[in-house]
């Protein structure tokens, strides 16, 4: 069985398999990648280059989008 690691996504803890890819998590969560921005450990990711990013224990991910505002 694969080892599990704990990450934090949008302020909530989440358990994922070790060696899983960030892109697969985003797809699994059905997040429309074109309409969001992603931050990994306080660094903004270039969406064109995220294919090969693997998740590590305690990674902090923020995924944001546009909502109504003044």
């Amino acid at each position, binding site marked *: 069985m694969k080892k599990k690691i704990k990450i934090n996504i949008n302020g909530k803890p989440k358990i994922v398999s070790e060696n899983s890819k960030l892109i697969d998590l985003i797809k699994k969560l059905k997040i429309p990648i074109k309409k969001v*921005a992603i931050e990994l450990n*306080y660094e903004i990711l270039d969406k064109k280059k995220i294919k090969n990013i693997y998740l590590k224990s305690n990674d902090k991910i923020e995924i944001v989008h*546009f909502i*109504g505002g*003044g």
Partner: protein
Amino acid sequence: MIAKKKFSSRLIVGTGKYRSMTECAKAVKLSGADIVTVAVRRVNISDKKKPLLMDFIDPKKITYLPNTAGCFNSKEALRTLRLAREIGGWKLVKLEVLGDKKNLFPEMIETLKSTEILSKEGFKVMVYCNDDPLMAKRLENSGACAIMPLAAPIGSGLGILNKVNIKIIRKQTKLPLIIDAGLGEASDATIAMELGCDGVLVNSAIALAKKPLSMALAFKNAVIAGRQSYLSGRIKKNLMGAASSPVNGII
């Protein structure tokens, strides 16, 4: 004209506080605005069915102006706008750094710092600020592409509290001057335009009106009327009356 780009409407509308996204989209359409402000927030991971703003207002047709609402220092504001740029490559942004949770007045020292940094990074920064002519000048020197003084506290609906300051700012700057925040009814927008402003930004006054769609239309017309009135040149104010009908030939 903002940052060398021409827009057809002088009214910018916010997209917050509407009862539904459908209503928001309809109001935007009726207002005739071609710029809308939007906020940057976390995606709801657990509820994937929540409607997305982009599905209601097409960013290809309407310019999204990301704001930094809810940011209380330069660091937060910069983080927010850098993320906004990554969402869709927008460079035109609304900087809004607040200093007090109750009155929502802008924290001008942090605003000034952020304007400088963002401009250097290539952002076109439209800056929410207080109605202080000296601060407006400093923002201009820091690279702001538009000066957006408040009329009154955000969401207060009090209308333009300091017309004199707005007039002074108008006189000293050639940058787009847009009244942002505090308007309550359509006539407030007319007054702003008559003071010589280039545009107004309205959210609460439309979104929270009893009939938001009707109010969106009212603001559209108010801005057009105000601009035309400003360009037409008003008459002088006199203490005494001056009859409109000729005195000669009175029976």
